[in-house]
């Protein structure tokens, strides 16, 4: 057989395997669920369900001695969208509510509040929060402090006084001025979705061949390892691109996340990550021969590290040194960093180039391991 004929036969085999795989993907409802329904579901969950922004936090305001000043402060608290304020004169009334979680915090204005305020003393404001949810507790104390500061200033202005004594901090939040957590949660969830599709689906379709015994018939034909791998990669890569399109469209038009970088950079960068995810899936498939095992390993090796170490839900910088070091080999970390940059900042080469290089290096290692470990035989 001539070299040309041999190459032709090889291409024919690859094409046949790609077509076969694509048909199976299209006919298998579960892969369509993973490819299209899961992205939408996860995006909705992360985009709308999870939010680190406190809106309508329930607080109890204890006013031991009511006065015009306390009423004013109450009004200024209630007028923000952040608080749902309940009022009483005896703090004990609220203790049960706080314990039961019906209130997230207490703000107590002491009996001499008005007098001390008039004297210009530090007024007695006590903030008690439910420390069992530290995130909300921090938010409340922060917000109350802010509300207090702005009220004091406003009061002084109204009274015609200047408050030069106060240090005024005027925070500016760049890139995400409204501080909407959705804006960094959505790019993060895209990373998870693509990891699921790339790693889980690929591992599943290979282990399925083992489980159903079809690989035996396939291996007894002239099909080679590389052809087999390409046959699995191409359709799953295309499905990953489709899921990516769903994600990007949802990010732009449902969640109104600004795209400050270029679409080209977004697609190119995502494709690189997708290849890494596929590589993880293929590597899993070299050891897992049942779909159950494959999905367990994919969950453990791809999904969970992506969730914990990509830095979109949990701050990696505040983790112990060992975990921080581990996060260096989590592909999702680089992808989330790059993706957040493309969406919220722009095409920043100093971020994107190192991230891309890190992902490419991981991809190369994964594929090398896969090629080495993929068995041409059954034992």
């Amino acid at each position: 057989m001539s070299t040309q004929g041999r190459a032709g036969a090889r291409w024919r085999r690859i094409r046949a395997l790609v077509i076969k795989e694509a048909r199976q993907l299209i006919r298998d409802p579960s892969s369509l669920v993973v490819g299209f329904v899961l992205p939408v579901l996860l995006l909705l969950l992360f985009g709308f369900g999870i939010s680190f922004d406190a809106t309508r936090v329930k607080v109890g305001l204890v006013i031991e001695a009511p006065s015009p000043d306390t009423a004013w402060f109450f009004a200024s608290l209630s007028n923000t969208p952040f608080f749902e304020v309940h009022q009483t004169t005896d703090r004990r009334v609220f203790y049960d509510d706080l314990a039961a979680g019906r209130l997230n915090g207490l703000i107590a204005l002491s009996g001499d509040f008005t007098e001390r305020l008039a004297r210009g003393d530090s007024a007695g404001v006590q903030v008690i929060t439910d420390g069992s949810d530290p995130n909300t507790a921090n938010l409340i104390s922060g917000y109350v402090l802010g509300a207090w500061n702005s009220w004091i200033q406003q009061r002084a202005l109204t009274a015609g006084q200047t408050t030069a004594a106060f240090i005024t901090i005027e925070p500016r939040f760049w890139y995400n001025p409204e501080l909407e957590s959705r804006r960094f949660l959505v790019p993060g969830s895209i990373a998870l979705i693509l990891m699921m599709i790339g790693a889980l689906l690929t591992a599943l379709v290979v282990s399925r061949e083992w489980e159903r015994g079809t690989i035996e018939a396939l291996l007894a034909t002239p099909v080679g390892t590389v052809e087999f791998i390409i046959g699995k990669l191409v359709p799953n890569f295309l499905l990953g691109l489709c899921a990516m399109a769903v994600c990007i469209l949802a990010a732009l038009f449902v969640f109104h996340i600004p795209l400050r970088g270029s679409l080209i950079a977004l697609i190119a960068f995502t494709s690189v990550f997708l290849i890494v995810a596929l590589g993880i899936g293929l590597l899993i498939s070299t050891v897992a021969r049942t779909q159950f095992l494959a999905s367990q390993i994919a969950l453990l090796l791809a999904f969970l590290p992506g969730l914990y170490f990509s830095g979109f839900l949990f701050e990696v910088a505040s983790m112990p040194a060992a975990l921080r070091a581990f996060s260096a080999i989590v592909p999702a970390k680089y992808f989330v960093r790059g993706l957040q940059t493309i969406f919220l900042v722009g095409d920043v080469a100093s971020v994107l180039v190192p991230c891309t290089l890190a992902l490419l290096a991981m991809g190369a290692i994964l594929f090398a391991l896969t090629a080495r470990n993929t068995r041409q035989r059954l034992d």
Partner: protein
Amino acid sequence: MTATWHVSASQGLAAMADPTTLVTIDALTKSFRTDGLPALSELTTSIKAGQVTGLVGPDGAGKTTLMRLMAGLMLPSAGRIEVCGFDTVTEAAAVHEVIGYMPQRFGLYEDLSVIENLTLYADLRGVVGQQRAETFDKLLVFTDLERFQPRLAGALSGGMKQKLGLACAMLKSPRLLLLDEPSVGVDPISRRELWKMVYTLIGEGVGVVWSTAYLDEAENCAEVIVLNEARALFQGDPKVMTASVVGRVFQVRGAIGDKRALLVAALKRPEVIDGVMQGATVRLVIGNDQTLPSKADLGAVEGSEVVSATPRFEDAFVAMLGGQPKRRLLLETRPQSTDNQSLPVTAKSLTKCFGSFTAADNISFDIKRGEIFGLLGPNGAGKSTVFKMMCGLLRLTSGSALVDGLDLMKSPSAARARLGYMAQKFSLYGDLSVSQNLDFFAGAYGLSGQKKRDAIKRVVAAFDLASQLQVNAGGLPLGFKQRLALSCAIMHEPPVLFLDEPTSGVDPLTRREFWSFINAMVARGITVMVTTHFMDEAEYCDRVALIYRGKNIAIGTPEELQNMVRTAELPHPTLEDAFIGLVHQHDGALT
């Protein structure tokens, strides 16, 4: 790849010595674990072109391992294999070019259609253009799958899947065709068709290796390799092996009275090394250089006659393994039932429709106490539907099903408590030990406290499970698995026992042992219903119903069914002949 290839001096001396030799196997050993027993040990043999070589042996004898080694899918631990002059280790790619391989379960993509499966394998094997069109035409006619091209492979019947698997394996006219247990899960009609196809192929010079646990298939092979426990017991013409028991095979027939009692009595004689039931007759094999005991010693009654019978391959196989295990079941604790009149199982006009499709159409039968009743039928004929309705697992569209007088629809749990059920694949928990399995099933049947302990003790003693109590069920030898499954099914002492293909794919020795347990239970008044498409199992039945296309097309004793197809050309029809003949008669009556 063309038909000519070069054999270098180092390659295959045997192949050069005999041009018809396709495969040369030399001192082949395969171990999966370094410490464990080998799956194949020191096997030296060869396989010739233009004939069928049978790879025969019980489950776990190493048949599949040998197939995979020949296909270059596994590496030998020691020794070497050459296929068409190519070494399977160093030249696996060349081996793949010249073989066709059909693995167990046929290796089809069930979510691809018939034609898509064919196209895939044609592309993979480089069958293109005009050659492809011609091959497809030929194969689709050959396998009679033309009408089913757009159907998904997963929606085909077992027989059609098998034919499609064969078609995919033969796309590029292989020189060597490896078929791994092609007849498992396939009814006798499809099996005969497959053999016809294979004979056509060997006429074209192809070498076929056919592995099977069914010994009747060995008789169709020009040569057999009998594997047992990793070693070849016999290689050569099956007729030679069968001839080793000539003059040692007898049939007790005529008015033999209680055939089960006769079989038990006969097997007590040391001279008798094997005995099975064949419809109304009992078949006996005596040991080498032994003489047949007298009729009285055999426990045969006056009206019976003992005649010499033509040996079968299976007789020789069992004799070669030293005869059947003569284990006796200790069911003495179970009270002997004397009631022979009542009907523990009654099916009245069972009908089941799935949408517009009638899976079971007006099927009626009664089973007497102490009777073994068989539901026979090709794949997809509706026997599983009937079986599931009788177990109370499927709702009837109309009709009624009674077990021990209780209606399965009206009082399902009370009725189900009267029956024991043993599923095809035993449905044991492989990760639990034998005693844990027993404990679980006893609990599932509602036994507790002293009753449960007694029940477990009783089956452990009866089935000799004491030595294996702490072993995980998944790691048990097949025979023990079978005993454990049976123990679990009868722990609550049901008067009725339902068996779903209990010994399909099981080697002859284990099968004999199983049926000796069943016979012992039947002798004590248990009623048995069994679904099967294996004639070996059907032979143990007192009566059978032949289910075809949802209808009960024949019912009677095995002899009655055989008589229905007796003709001048076929004076001694087997039960399989009856099965096929009656199905064809029914088809003919329809058209």
